[in-house]
Each structure stands twice: as C-alpha cells, then as structure tokens.
C-alpha cells in the first residue's frame, strides 16, 4: 500500500516536472488558531527574523511556508479570539469545516482525544521525519493520551513576573547586581507592596482582573502547588479548592486588591498598557509576551525602559508555577483527502523545524536541541527565568478544563469585583467545580 502510493506520487511528479511553477498537487490546508490577527502588519512578510510577538511570528511562518513549500500546499488561516476559540473549534465538527491543523492547549487535549475527535499522529510523524525523541519528556507526555500521540508539542508556557526595574529601584528593591528582590512569603509580599506604594505611589502589581481570563486564578493555582496541594486530582473526579491552603492563597490575593496594591479595573490589554506606561512595578502575565515587552522597552516609545523577567517566586514555600502548553493537532475529518493530510503534515513539520523562531516569543521550547542551542541561550532575558522550565506544573489531563476554569474565575474574581469574602468565594468555587466534575466520565 505504501509502495504504490509512493510510486503513484513519483509518477505524478515526473509527469508534471516539465511545467513551470506547477505543483505536484495543490492542497488547501485550513488552519485554525488564536494568537491574534496582524494581517495589516505582517500580511506579506516572509522574513521571520523581522517578526515579533506570537501573532507576528506565526503569521510570518505561515507566509513563509506558503511561499516556499514545493508540494503546492497553501495554508489558509482563520484566527479566532482566544476566548471563543474552543467554541469555534468544537462547532466545526458539526458545521462541516473541520480545520486540518489547529492549535490546542495540552490541558484541553483530553476532551478531544477521549471523544476520538483527533487524528493519531505517531506514524505520520515518523513518515515526515519528525524526531519525537527530541521533545522533552514532559511535552511528549502532554501530547499523549492512552499511549497514542495526538499532537505536535510546540511550547511550554508559564506565568512570570514581568518587572519594571526602574520602579523597583525607586522602591529600593533592586540588588547591587541588578537583580530584583522578590517576596518569599505572603507577609513579605504585602509589606513590600505597601512599601512600594509609599515610595513610588504606583501599583505594586498589575494583572488582568476582570471577567474574561482568570490570570489571578492561575496565580492562585501556582500558590496551591507551592503548598503541595493539587487543585484538581489526577483522576478528574475531585477538586481541592475550599481548603486551608486555598484560603491562605486566596487571602493573599484578595489583600493585594483590598489594600490598593493592585488595580481591580484592569482587563488584559489594560494591564499590559498599565505596565508599559510605568504604572505598575510587576505585571503578572506569561512567557508569551517577553519578546513583545522587550521590543517595546527597547524601542523607547513606552514609558517602561528597563525591563526584566523573573520566575514566579516561592511565596508559599516551593518553587512551582502554573504552566500549560501549546500543541498542534489534526482534528479528525473523514472527508480529508490524503493530499490534504500530507500537506498538513508538511506544514506541521515546517513548524517543528522552526521551533526556535516560536521560542523567540518568550515561550519555553519543548525541543531539547533548541534548548541546548546557543541561539536560544542568546535570547534576551531567558536566563532570568530559566528555572521556570523546572518549576512548571501543569493541570492534570482532565476533561472539561475550560468549564472548570471559567467557573473558577467567575467565583474567584468576585472577591475583589463584588467584595465577597475569600471563604464565600472558595465555597462557591468548590460547588461549581464539583458540579462540573460530576459529569466527567
């Protein structure tokens, strides 16, 4: 079977080799992703080195593949807003436009793989020459369920403390060697925050605090792991939310808002703007913006001038931080032709080959060869958060992660949005999550 296919393709290719510019076959690959739409800026760019940020780099990589591939494959991208992405992806299974390549978080993979909605990729990777041994073990594990490989791991991302060195210096928190002093206990976090506010008049912490992305829930989850508690059990049946550890972590976060050390009014772009405008000392965000902020600080156009990154500190004892992972999957589609499948695989291989470029965003690479490379080591700020790769703790592969997460941040954010007590918030969270977990099979 394999032989005849290869022969057939060879014959086809030979037959067409004379005609200028025509491809062996022409396949449109539909590509579904978030990461934003920056067609106006990068629509025609194919030089990856000129791209910055997640949107820029993935757009340019796509353009480059389209321009340079020799099999006549064309990637057609559909971008979806992050919040609506999985709604859209799920809908495609019913509405007949199942994408050929799609991005997926490792935390969400089980929902799809358990329902047999993804194409197993192990054999295809081998055929395409993707070396799975090069992936760090954790990444490979995340992409595998029930011993079947369903995804191409692409990055590991985690929470970070993005620091405005100048403001921290003003507050007296910068050591002689230029590194920044960060709190190592909840009490210290609050006392440093108060001191910061007194000395600089600005917010100590900036973070997305409104209703759509739950940044603080991720911080809270990190604090739970730091105390040795798993928020979600590995079997996906129980959650440990309303516990003394949960209470301690929630109290700290609530206190930050109550004492005016963090601004409740910020949504995601607002938090970024506040940080770039020099209105906050520390921005709680992730690895995906390191390159962006670096470029902005260097450009001189932002108020932020001296920018550094730090691992989320072991405020509650252990060095653990929330992490997730981006992967590329091939949703199952009976109507996909072999040409389309091959083209999609070629695209995936291309993305894998360019993993380093993606790592330029700030995300941690999942390929050992990239991590060990000198180019990677030379990327700005990476040394400042190299420990994050080890501290990264992912949520267990459990179903309905999104619903769980949405339920969590709805109830959690109430602590500062509506003044709910931490006890009430945690109790509500526990109830909501339990209700969802009851449906996990």
């Amino acid at each position, binding site marked *: 079977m394999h032989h005849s296919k290869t022969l057939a393709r060879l014959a086809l290719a030979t037959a067409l080799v004379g005609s200028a510019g025509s491809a062996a076959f022409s396949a449109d690959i539909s590509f579904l992703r978030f990461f934003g739409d920056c067609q106006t800026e990068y629509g025609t760019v194919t030089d990856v080195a000129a791209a910055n940020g997640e949107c820029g780099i993935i757009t340019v990589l796509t353009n480059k593949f389209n321009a340079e591939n020799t099999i006549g494959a064309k990637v057609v991208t559909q971008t979806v807003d992050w*919040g609506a992405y*999985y*709604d859209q992806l*799920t*809908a495609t*299974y*019913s509405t007949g436009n199942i994408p050929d390549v799609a991005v997926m978080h490792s935390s969400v993979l089980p*929902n799809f793989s358990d*329902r*047999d*909605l993804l194409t197993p990729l192990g054999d295809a990777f081998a055929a395409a020459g993707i070396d799975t041994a090069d992936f760090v073990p954790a990444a490979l594990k995340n992409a595998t369920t029930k011993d079947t490989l369903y995804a191409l791991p692409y990055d590991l991302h985690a929470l970070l403390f993005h620091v405005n060195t100048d403001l921290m210096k003003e507050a007296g928190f910068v050591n002689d060697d230029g590194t920044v002093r960060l709190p190592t206990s909840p009490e210290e976090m609050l006392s440093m925050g108060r001191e910061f506010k007194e000395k600089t008049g600005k917010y100590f912490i900036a973070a997305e605090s*409104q*209703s*759509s992305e739950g940044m603080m829930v991720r911080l809270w989850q990190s604090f739970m792991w730091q105390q040795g508690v798993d928020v979600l059990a590995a079997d996906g049946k129980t959650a440990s939310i309303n516990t003394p550890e949960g209470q301690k972590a929630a109290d700290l976060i609530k206190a930050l808002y109550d004492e005016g050390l963090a601004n*409740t*009014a910020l*949504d995601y772009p*607002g938090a970024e*703007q506040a940080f770039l405008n020099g209105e906050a000392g520390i921005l709680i965000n992730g690895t995906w913006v390191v390159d962006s902020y670096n470029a902005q600080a260097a450009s001189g156009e932002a108020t932020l001038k001296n920018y550094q990154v730090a691992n989320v500190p072991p405020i509650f004892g252990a060095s653990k931080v929330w992490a997730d992972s981006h992967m590329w999957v091939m949703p199952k589609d009976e109507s996909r032709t072999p040409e389309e499948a091959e083209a999609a695989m070629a695209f995936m291989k291309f993305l894998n080959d360019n993993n380093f470029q993606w790592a330029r965003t700030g995300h941690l690479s999942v390929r050992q060869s990239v991590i060990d490379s000198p180019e990677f080591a030379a990327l700005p700020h990476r040394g400042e958060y190299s420990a994050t790769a080890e501290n990264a703790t992912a949520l267990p592969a459990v179903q*309905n992660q*999104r*619903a769980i997460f*949405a339920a969590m941040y*709805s*109830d959690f*954010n*109430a602590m500062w*949005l*509506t*003044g*709910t007590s931490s006890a009430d918030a945690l109790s509500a969270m526990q*109830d*909501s999550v339990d*209700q*969802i977990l009851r*449906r996990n099979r």
Partner: protein
Amino acid sequence: MTRAGSSVTRAPGTAFLFLAPFLAVYAVFLVYPLFKGIWISLHDWELAGGYREYIGFLNYEDLWFDKLFWRTVRNTLLFVAMTVPTMTLLALVLALAVHGPGRVKSVLRSVFFLSSVFSVSVVTLIWSMVLSADQGLLVPLWDAMGIKPINFLGHPTLAMPSIALATLWWGVGLPMALFLAALGQIPQELYEAAELDHAPRFTVLRRITLPSIRHTVLLVVVLQIIGQFQIFGQVHLMTQGGPANRTRTMVQYIYDTGFRDWQVGYASAMAMALFVLMFGFSMLQLWLGRKGDEA
C-alpha cells in the same frame, strides 16, 4: 374591524396549495425542532463526538439544584424589570414628543428610530467603547473633574444597568413607532372637544390620549417582555456574563452550556425552562390586560 363579514369560499384544494409552503416550513423548522428539543433535553447529549444517553428527567433535576441557573433566572427577571417599564415609558414620551407634522419632527423620528436599525454587535461595539473606563466617551469629563472613571461594565451593581442603557438606546425605535401609529389613530374630534373646554395639557394626556392607546401600551409591554427575556448578544459581547456572574442571563447560560461545555442535553432542558417562563409571563400579561379591559 372586518367589514365584509365572513364570506369565505369553500376551497380545500386551493387552500392547501396556498398554505403548503408555509405549513411545510413551519412544520420542519419550528414544530419538529420544538419536539426534538424536548427529546434532546431528556438525554445526556454532547455537541461533538456523538455521545447520547437517555437519562429521563435527570437534566431537569440537575437544573432545579443548579445555583448558577437560578442566578441567571434572577438576573434575567431583573433585566426585564429594568428595561420593560423604562423602555415603554421612554417610547411613549418620545412618541408624544415627535408626533405630528413638520420637518423637525420628521427628522427627530428618524433619529430615534435610527439606533434600532443597527446590529447588536454594532451596538455593543459602540457602547463598550462609550462605557470604557480608560477610553470611554465621558473619560475626558471625569479627568477634567478629577474623578476616577468608573468601570461601568466591570462594576457589580452598575454592569446590568449599563447593559440596560445600551438596550434602551438600541430598542426604543419599534415601541416608539407603535405608539406613533396608535397616536395617529386617535380621532381628532376628541381633541377638538377638549380644546373648546380649554382643558389643560396634562388632563388631555391623562383623560384622552392615554386611555385611547392602552391596547398599544399592553402590546408594547408584552412584546418587550418577550424580547428582553431573550437577551443574549449584549451580555455575550459586553460583559460575558460578568462581573462574577452578575449579568449572566438565561440565554447566555444556555449558549455556554451547549456550545462551550458541550452539554447540549442540559442546555435544551434550560431552553425549555426559558420557554415555559416566557410563556407564563406573556399569558399573565395578556390576562391582566384583558381584565383591565373589563374593568
């Protein structure tokens, strides 16, 4: 109302031909789905992956104990209470103000109806910007006065009134048109008589105008209740149900449950509950209206 009496011709064959298109579409796209929806609500049915399991009334039982569901019911009722009276009143006041001949009034009528013509996503775009805490319309005003701008859409108590405000701006056109039509039907003689008596303006309003249009008021209220119960777009796009579920409405919960959490069976059960609730309210309203007529 009908002058010609009921002189209809007996013509079953022709009637069938005339009715067939409507009945066919009606049966396939309204009647059948309604029953299918009830059927789905009796299952644990997933959006993707083909999992279907008959569970009887378990979804309804879950619904009864679902705290978030009752929260959305409360929010929806609150929203209806907030918008229906104000919308009706505003539409009436505007209709009274712009009723009558003249170029100016004609332009005014267009202005107030214009906002109804936009899509919900245009309205939410406009109002999300207007109400934004750092880029909003009134921010320069707050800044000049030294007041910290309020984050309307993120504020626990102000979020829903903000959505109500946007909804008012968007929706007043149709009720206003209904009132205008009704005002136009009031016989002139009634006003002329009042003029002869030198009746003060307000008495005219109270004794002549309002009673004459009371059927329209009832119609507007019923239509508004039906409409506002179904609120989805504004909430989905402006607040996503936040902050902390303060603005989460029933339809939004149905959408999230079905299309985000894949629980189509549970979502169907919720949709049925919404249907029953709306039906009950409309019936109540109509019954009250009829009682008012008899009074």
